[in-house]
Each structure stands twice: as C-alpha cells, then as structure tokens.
C-alpha cells in the first residue's frame, strides 16, 4: 500500500487512495459524519465509497462508517485503513476484524473517552489524541462528531470549501445547525495540524462526466424504473429494504405504485398479477424471501408472465447474517424452481452496474415473457458510492409482444419459431384467455397430454436459448493466457487485483459474467480462447459458480476455484496474492 506522508513536507507523496473508519457508540453521530465525509469527497471531485457496520442492537448500538476516497474510480474497499478515528471506544472493538489497520496507520481518539482496544493497537499504527468532546463543548451546540469530521478532513487535506458544502447540503433546512457544525469542523481541522502523521490525497481528477452519489440499491431501483417497471410489491427485508424505500416515492412520481405486501408469497403473486395486467412489475428481497417465492416463480415460467426479482443477497442459510454480504444464493436462483423451469438469472458487478443490469433484466423479462432474478448483494446494495454517471448502454428494450384485439385464431401459448407468443393484455377484446400454472395446450386450456407438455417445455426453453443477449452477457477485460472468471461484487476487488498483477508482469483476463442463466457456454469458450488456465472466484462456501460452469460449459483449459464464505469481502491485496501464487503454480 501507499506510504503515508508527513504534513510538514510539501514534497511528500500524495496518496491515490485513502481509507478511513469513523467509529463510536450509538448516537455519537459517526454515520452522519461518514455521510458528510463521503459528500465532501464528492464535492472535492474525488471518487469515494462508503460501507457501514453496526452492532446487533436495533438502535443505539456501536457504529462504524468505512470510507475510501480516491482520485480514480473505485468499486471496493482496500485491504487496510489508514485512519481509525473514534468518538469513543465503547464496544468499537467489535469492528476489529472489519477495520484492519495499516502498520503505518493512525488511531485517533478522545483521551477522555477511553483507550483503543488491543485489536487495533497491535497493528503498530501510530496513536494520536484529540479532545473531541472538550473542543465541541467550547462551541455552542457543537458536537464531537463534527469535530471528528474536521479532524479527518484536515488529516487527508480535503478542501475546506468542499467540507462546508457537504455539511450545508446534509443539514438541508436545519439552518440553525449550520454555524455550530461548521465551527466544530473548523476546530477539528485546527487540531489536525498538531498531528504529525497525515495522509494527503492526490489531487482529484476534475472534469469528465457528471458524478452521482448513489447506493447499489438505489441504482437498482432507478434501473427498474428506466426499464419500465411501474408496479412493485414487496415485504421488508435486510438488506433490500432501502431499495424499496427509494422506490416507494420514486414510483409515485412516475405514476407507478408500490404495495407493502403481507409476506413474500403475496409480494411475488401481486407482482405476477400486476404483470399479467400488462404493467412491468418487480419485487425485491433477500435469500429468505427468495426461498418463499420460488414456487410462484415456477408459475411465472409456466404462465409466461414477465416478472423481475432483485435478490440482495446476504449471508445464509436461514436468517444467517442479515447485514453481511455473500454470493451463496446462486444455487437457489439457478436451480430452486421445481420442474424444468428455464428463467433468467443476472448479476450486476458494481454499484453503477446495479442500474444497467436491473434495467436489462426488466427488458429481457418483458421481451422473453420470463421471470428474471437479479443477484445483487449486501455489499453492492448498501455501499454508497461516488461514481461517474452510468452511460445508458445499448441494452435497448424490445418490450412485450402483445396480441391485437380480435386477432383471428388467437392462441396465447402458440408454439412459435422464437418461442415467444403474443400476450393478450386484459382489456383487449376478442383475445381473452386464462393464464395457467397447469400445463396447457397452445390455446391455454389445461392439458395432461405428454405432447403438449413437451411442446410447451421446448417453446419456453427455446425463447431463452435463442434470444440475442449481445455483448452484455459478461464484462471481458484484459488479455493473457490466464483468466479469472467471476460474478457480482467479487468483480471490484478483482479488477484492482488484476491491475496489480499486470503491474507485476502477470497479464490476466477478467471475465465477469452478467448473464448467469441461460448459461452462455459458447460465448464463455470464445472469451477463454487461448487461455491456459482459469480461476473461478466467488464468495460462497462451496464454489457454486465453479460447479455450475463445469456443468454447463466445456473448458479447453484447466479450471480451478477460489471461494470463501461471506461475512468479509475479498480485498484487492488478498486477491492479488492469490493470483500471483496461482499464476506461478
């Protein structure tokens, strides 16, 4: 990692990326300070990423805001933190494994609020004391978390005016809170001058496209609306709730509706019912909810009703760890449905890509009259990031093919060359039909004939297999005789690891699969052309993607697996070391 620099040395190396953890007990305001730091970084023209962690208490538990600020786009956290700044140390030790400190890092806290735990100090990081509470007390209505914000801004040389704008923007209409907050920030910044060790950021890359500050959950919600979704039914569940909370008012603004359902069984069936009515529909959930939905997803397959389910994956099985990320729902998303039930499974690979992939999922579901499962995860969903405005990218919708009124000899499930048959929308005269979860004839009449079953199965498979997914099936980057294959949130740290390996003279190809089902064996084979060996990287305990690809694809190269369960994200340094060892093996 980058070496820290000294404040007194103007020629000191500036860092391309700095990682800061703000921590404290509940009510100390570290999340507010973290959000302001993120906003300030954005205002100063930096890219940034924030994740958060909190104790098991519903309210009032200890909290940590982890912020990475960089001069170039970033999609993951770093291996180590440069600064751990705490308002107090009560129970903050619980974040020990989530806040690994660099040996040349800095622990800064209030000497009147206890001592940092050994889990932090054993890193060898330097220590500094700032009387946050005393400084805050010296200002009418001053708060220690604002002093902390100013302190950190000073330590990394974040421009004063950017911090001011961030504070003002965050406080919004609370005008009275402005002056004391800014005074507290100024006090913190002055205190930073007395600390020897600084971590100065390299200048921000100004210009370029418009920047957004957004979470993956918000991006997925916006992608859904761009894709045409106007009906959502869902049941609250961590970590998908924020997606729904963003959608509720946003859908209303575009004339759509969100219904809070009584459970996930209702969510998926309301969604299917609305889509049957011709309105593009979506639900969002996490693993336990997806498990409840799979029976009805089979209904969507058989009745050929388009519907999108965003699964913001968390650690499973059962209640698991609701606040931590894992990619272990791949199996249920691929195989959870009973019977032969072809459907779409997609995975976004960055916060920004949550927008594009969800939009694409809606387009594909509508066009192919199929359910689509979007596998986001807790990391992508809840990470708040400064990103370049996502380019609307070529995933143009064909849309739902509907039946014309009074179409002669209309058959809802007509066996067509493409497998897609025009769908009559209620309200259209002369083409009424009954959509059915029972196997049916082309007309839709329930049928127990083996010939009807075979014909409809084949039609439903064909429409997915023969669709043109274009170049969006995966992001294929780099070149070389070695390849890394992955999906979802492993992509961010892998991109950095692959860049680091290239800098070490080991060029690697990175294939991040966006369209997981239907499998694309020919496209994968082409992407792996000339590759000597490949490594499948994923975050689950059993190597689910590795096994799936082996079942679906014929590899011309040696393929091995790197997987670890959820709870802690892969980091770039960890993956870089793995890749270097693997490349030499």
């Amino acid at each position, binding site marked *: 990692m980058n070496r820290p620099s000294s404040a007194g040395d103007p020629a000191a190396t500036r860092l391309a990326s700095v990682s800061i953890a703000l921590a404290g007990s509940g009510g100390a305001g570290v999340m507010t300070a973290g959000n302001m730091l993120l906003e300030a970084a954005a*205002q100063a023209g930096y890219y940034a990423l924030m994740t958060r962690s909190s104790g098991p208490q519903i309210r009032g538990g200890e909290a940590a805001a982890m912020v990475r600020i960089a001069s170039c786009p970033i999609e993951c956290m770093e291996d180590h933190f440069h600064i751990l700044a705490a308002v107090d140390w009560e129970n903050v030790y619980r974040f020990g494994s989530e806040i690994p400190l660099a040996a040349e890092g800095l622990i800064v806290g209030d000497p009147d609020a206890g001592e940092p735990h050994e889990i932090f100090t054993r890193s060898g990081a330097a220590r500094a004391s700032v009387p946050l509470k005393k400084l805050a007390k010296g200002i009418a209505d001053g708060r220690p978390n604002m002093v902390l914000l100013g302190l950190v801004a000073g330590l990394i040389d974040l421009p004063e005016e950017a911090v001011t704008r961030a504070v003002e923007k965050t406080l919004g209409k609370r005008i009275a809170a402005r002056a004391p907050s800014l005074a507290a920030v100024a006090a913190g910044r002055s205190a930073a001058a007395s600390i020897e060790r600084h971590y100065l950021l390299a200048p921000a890359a100004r210009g370029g496209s418009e920047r957004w500050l957004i979470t993956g959950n918000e991006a997925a919600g*916006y992608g859904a609306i761009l894709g045409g979704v106007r009906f959502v039914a869902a049941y609250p569940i961590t970590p998908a709730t924020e997606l729904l909370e963003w959608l509720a008012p946003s859908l209303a603004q575009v*004339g759509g509706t969100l219904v809070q359902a009584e459970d996930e069984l209702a969510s998926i069936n309301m969604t299917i019912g609305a889509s049957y009515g011709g309105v593009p529909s979506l639900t969002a959930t996490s693993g336990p909810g997806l498990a409840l939905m799979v029976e009805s997803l089979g209904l969507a397959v058989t009745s050929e009703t388009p519907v999108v389910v965003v699964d913001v994956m968390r650690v499973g099985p059962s209640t698991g760890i609701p606040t931590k990320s894992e990619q272990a729902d791949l199996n249920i998303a691929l195989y959870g449905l009973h019977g032969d039930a072809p459907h779409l499974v997609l995975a976004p690979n960055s916060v920004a890509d949550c927008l594009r992939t969800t939009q694409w999922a809606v387009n594909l579901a509508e066009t192919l009259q199929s359910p689509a499962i979007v596998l986001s995860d807790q990391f992508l969903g809840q990470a708040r990031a400064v990103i370049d405005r996502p380019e609307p990218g070529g995933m143009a919708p064909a849309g739902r093919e509907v039946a014309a009124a009074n179409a002669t000899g209309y058959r809802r499930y007509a066996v067509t060359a493409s497998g897609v048959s025009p769908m009559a929308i209620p309200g259209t005269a002369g083409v009424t039909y009954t959509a059915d979860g029972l196997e049916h004839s082309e007309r839709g009449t329930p049928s127990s004939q083996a010939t009807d079953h075979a014909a409809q199965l084949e039609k439903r498979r064909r429409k997915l297999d023969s669709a043109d997914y274009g170049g969006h099936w995966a992001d294929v980057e780099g070149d070389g005789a070695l390849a890394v294959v992955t999906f979802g949130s492993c992509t961010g740290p892998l991109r950095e690891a692959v860049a680091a390996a290239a800098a070490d003279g080991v060029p690697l190809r990175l294939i991040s699969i966006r369209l997981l089902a239907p499998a694309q064996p020919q496209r994968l084979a082409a992407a792996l052309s000339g590759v000597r060996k490949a490594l499948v990287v994923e975050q689950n305990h059993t190597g689910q993607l590795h096994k799936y690809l082996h079942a679906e694809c014929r590899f011309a190269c040696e393929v091995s697996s790197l997987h670890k369960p959820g709870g802690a994200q892969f980091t770039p340094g960890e993956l870089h070391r793995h890749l270097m060892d693997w490349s030499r093996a």
Partner: protein
Amino acid sequence: MNEASAVAAALAPAAFKSDIKPVWCPGCGDYGVVNALSKALAKLSLRPENVAIVSGIGCSSRIPAYTSCYGFHGVHGRALAAGTGLKIARPDLTVIVTGGDGDGYSIGGNHFLHACRRNVDMTYIVMDNRVYGMTKGQPSPTTEPDWDSKLSPEGTGLREFLPMVVALASGANFIARAFTGDPNGLAEVLVQAVRHPGFSFVEVLSPCITFRPEQLEWKKMVKPGALKPARDVARAARRMLRDDGFDLGVLYAGERAAYQPRGPRMAREAAELARGFAL
C-alpha cells in the same frame, strides 16, 4: 351496429361462458357459480375483456377457464395476492377472485386477512364445500371437527374456521352468504358484491356431493333472506352470534373507502429521478 350501440348493448349470460367442459363431478355446486356469475356479469353490463377472474388451486379454482373473461389460474392459496396486484395495477378492470375453502382459509389464510384489511375494490367468491375435493376428501378449515376421513380418522377435533366473522373482524367492506342451489339469489348477491366499493366477500355454500353427499341436505337447511345488510360492524358481529352457517343474505355493507395508493402520484419522466443522485 355502430360502435356506440355495441358498447351499450348488454351481453347475454351465455356470452360469459367458455366452450371448455368443466372437470367437476356431475351435481357439483360449482356449476351453479358459473351460471350465477355469468348472469351477474351480464346484469352489470360488463364485457368479458374487462373482467378478470383470478383463482388458486382446487376444484372451484378451475372456474376462470369456464368463463370467456380474462382468467388467471395461479398457485395454491395465492389468488387474493395475484388479484390484488392486478387490480392495483389495472384499476379499470373488474377483478373477481375465486376459490375454495382450503385455498382461501388454510394455505391462503394470511392473504384473506390482509385482503380484508387492504380493502382493494374487488370481489372474493369462496365456494365452500367443507372438504378438499381435488385431493379426494380431506378435511378443510371449515370441516366439522368429527368428520371422519382417511387423513384424519375420527375427525380433526378442531373447531371450524368462521370465515364471515374473520372477514368482519379483518375489515372486509361487504360480506354475504349465498347458496348454489339458489342461482338467482346468488347472482343477485354477486351483482351487489361487484358494485359495492372495496373488498367484497361472498361465502357460497357449494355442496360436494362426491365426498360430502350429506350436503345434499343443505337445500333444506338454508334460510334465504335471513341476513339483512348492516352498516354497523358491531351489529353485524352480534348477528353472527346467532348464525348457524345457513343464514343467507348480505350480513354487512360498510362504507370504508376502497384502497387507494397513497402519496402524490405524478407523471414525471423517469430520467428526472436522476436529479436526486447528481452532485
């Protein structure tokens, strides 16, 4: 015929029936529901393309395909959810949810409570025969506790579920009971149920003469007109204390406003939402 008169002309009941032959046993009460529903839809001057019949699984849930309306035959127990989504997404449609006692009160019980609470403007017809017919004779939530069957020898020992009481307590806006042996009375109740705003619940006594031949006696036990519509929940609740399950008529016709999505609904361009993300 010009277009205006085409819209005005009411269809005959037969126009609401399809050419598909029901899977039901001869003598099944559910035939009476197809007939009464067709009459009611004709009387309401509706057109098949503007009506959606949504159902779950079970003998009675087969009904959508026997009509000429739009139909949705979904999974077991979730018909109310599918109907709710459809009606909220497409308020212009007349949505009628149909099913049996097992589908609605057992596997779908939670949705029944919340459909009553939510009060979406649709009609729920439950054809209650106090037995699972499709799986050939198991006790349902409305089966008598001592009814002997292979699955529950000597009976379940469980008290019957009281759908109308639950509907009343849960907030349904219109509650009635009818009998398939009285197709005209049933048709009249269905007309009222569809017209009444909010969630209308109609319990239809629909004998299963195959597994519950004793239900042939129901025609002697029912009391047409025994229930008079109350606007007051407490009064309707008191009336239920005297109910033996065979009182027919409208129990309750409330004045609760039908469900409306809340909050300001606008017609902005989707792209405008991005302003919230831009720095």
